[in-house]
């Protein structure tokens, strides 16, 4: 793979380097951000702010800027990104191309809903302004378009006003899967941000036990209140572990403490970063999986089959004893995602990660595929290295229409895998 540091939003592509693919911050765990035999356009250096309207919170920025960089600068001015995923170390371009979602999907929908327009560089040499009115087809293909429609150079976003950088948060423990749905419904209106962390090792009566974490933006605190401050530093694991630290015993021990024994913080104030990006405290956390890495398994099941589907998925996972700590469940609301290939859709999304134990793990994932398919669900292409072509086409029935909008000189290892 040839690498080109893409510095300027005005620079042209040179045909000799095709096939192209943009790379944001490389936080997709899978091959949507890999382009074997082609060229990667590194966009991190294209990270300038272009315009900002303090009154309306509309910002124009280059696509390589990190969400964390935007937050660092806009939060103190009372503006917040409308949608953030579980890490702030991703680029705006990556957020668009995977049409990412946050814990507030029920009320905010996916990231793409807040994009007002973009500039897209095509290999034809055209630099198109695209939006819901201009080149609407390309706009819809580019949101959630996995980088395949060209290079996004500029994005215009609408932010939301917040009155502080703090959140009021609440954690509630639930003893088994059935309980979570009620809590979820109950918290719905008042708490825009919710996520359930699930123990995917527990079986039987305890199947699907976990902790529901809810949050909402807090008003400014009266003078003198001790408020949590954000200390920027995060720790990192400098090396891949020689072997995976994620095994049956470590996970069981961790989960037993987290889901049963440890006292929960209850209601408290947290900094936005501390609440929404807990994994960012440990950079390169995926290194705990060791050199062989892990398989993400991120799926969505439509509401009609969500409860049964999630139960079956968790049963199968628990029976395999391969589950890991990082199981998260979120509700997707009914606000439609604007992208042709967007992953978010009404339903429930479950994110499981599995240490790579070779064929045994792949067999388990194939079983999970059957459950997801039967429930009419889909897998997240942005977090995938193994889904089958059938699974992709079923989950994204508009793929043929999408394919007509792909830039012929852009491609990825993922896309070639889906179009053998």
């Amino acid at each position: 793979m040839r690498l080109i540091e893409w510095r300027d939003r005005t620079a042209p592509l040179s045909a000799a380097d095709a096939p192209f693919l943009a790379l944001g911050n490389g936080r997709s765990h899978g091959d949507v951000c890999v382009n074997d035999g082609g060229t990667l356009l590194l966009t991190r250096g294209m990270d300038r702010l272009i315009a900002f309207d303090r009154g309306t919170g509309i910002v124009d920025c280059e696509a390589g800027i990190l969400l964390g960089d935007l937050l660092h600068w806009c939060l103190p001015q009372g503006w917040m990104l409308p949608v953030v995923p579980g890490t702030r170390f991703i680029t705006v371009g990556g957020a668009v191309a995977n049409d990412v979602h946050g814990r507030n999907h029920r009320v905010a929908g996916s990231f793409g809903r807040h994009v007002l327009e973009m500039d897209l560089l095509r290999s034809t040499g055209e630099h198109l302004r695209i939006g819901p009115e201009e080149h609407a087809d390309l706009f819809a293909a580019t949101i959630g378009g996995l980088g395949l429609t060209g290079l996004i150079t500029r994005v215009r976003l609408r932010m939301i006003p917040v009155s502080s950088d703090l959140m009021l948060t609440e954690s509630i423990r639930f003893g088994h899967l059935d309980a979570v749905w009620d809590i979820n419904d109950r918290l719905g209106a008042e708490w825009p941000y919710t996520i359930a962390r699930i123990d995917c090792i527990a079986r039987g009566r305890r199947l699907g036990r976990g902790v529901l974490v809810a949050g909402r933006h807090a008003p400014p605190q009266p003078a003198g209140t001790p408020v949590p401050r954000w200390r920027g530093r995060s720790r990192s694991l400098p090396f891949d572990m020689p072997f995976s630290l994620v095994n049956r015993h470590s996970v069981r021990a961790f989960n037993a403490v987290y889901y049963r024994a440890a006292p929960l913080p209850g209601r408290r104030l947290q900094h936005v970063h501390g609440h929404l990006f807990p994994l960012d405290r440990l950079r390169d956390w995926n290194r705990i999986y060791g050199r062989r890495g892990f398989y993400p398994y991120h799926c969505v099941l439509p509401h009609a089959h969500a409860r049964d589907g999630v139960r079956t998925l968790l049963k199968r996972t628990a029976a395999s004893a391969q589950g890991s700590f990082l199981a998260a469940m979120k509700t997707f609301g009914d606000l439609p995602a604007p992208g042709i290939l967007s992953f978010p859709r009404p339903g429930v999304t479950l994110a499981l990660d599995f240490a790579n134990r070779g064929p045994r793990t792949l067999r388990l994932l194939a079983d999970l595929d059957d459950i997801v398919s039967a429930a009419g669900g889909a897998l997240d292409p942005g977090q995938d290295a193994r889904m089958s072509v059938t699974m992709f086409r079923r989950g994204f029935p508009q793929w043929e229409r999408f394919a007509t909008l792909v830039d012929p000189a852009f491609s990825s290892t993922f896309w070639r895998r889906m179009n053998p």
Partner: protein
Amino acid sequence: MSATPRRIAIFGATSRIATETARLWLARGVALVVVARNPERLRMLTDDLGIRAGGLAEVDAVTADLADLDALPALWQSMTDRFPDLDGVLLAHGSLPDQARCEATPETMLHEIRVNALSAMSLLTVIANDFEARRRGIIAVIGSVAGDRGHRSNYVYGAAKGMLAIFLQGLRSRLHGSGVTVITLKPGFVITPMTQDFDRDGLLWVRPERVARGIVRAFERRRDVVYLPWFWRPILWATRLIPEPVFKRLSL
């Protein structure tokens, strides 16, 4: 002696490392004069810095090709006319040449020496006298670990950065006691456009933000010679200890 300068001029401001440093300084309320050769890129940078500063710090731009040595004294004069309170400079421009082309033609080799060493030394000759007369200021220049020893893979670049380092050593000594600080910054492997053709995996490679934090710290502490990150100091110390008969065989 004041702490961080009030207004800093950054030469080669569109470089990745300089851009990150500029953002940090703005957040601390330091006024900036950014100098670069490419007007369009410079405008995009000043727009970005202006929005980030949010009216709290001033940002001004000057376009100049720093390889044009004859124009440098007038360039500095015009800058101090406009901004009499300039009391810090960061020289960040540089180019990592194609070593093979430098070996093939003297003109290429000389051009690289001009961009990486002579231009900075010309500028510094003017700036040093100016700061010395005013008895204040911080002068910082980005050299490189490549200037600590000659390597077969990049000795033209290394020679230029090494020349710069020796020049700065002398200048620092000359200005000692005059109220002017001279800082030599020596980054190691940094992920920037300059190094896009390298295989940049491994623990020694760092992002430019980290180097930028080191530069800001070096200004605050008025250091003499700074390796960025710090671990290059012991690495270079060990490298310099290798006897020449052994070193010449190493394919570094």
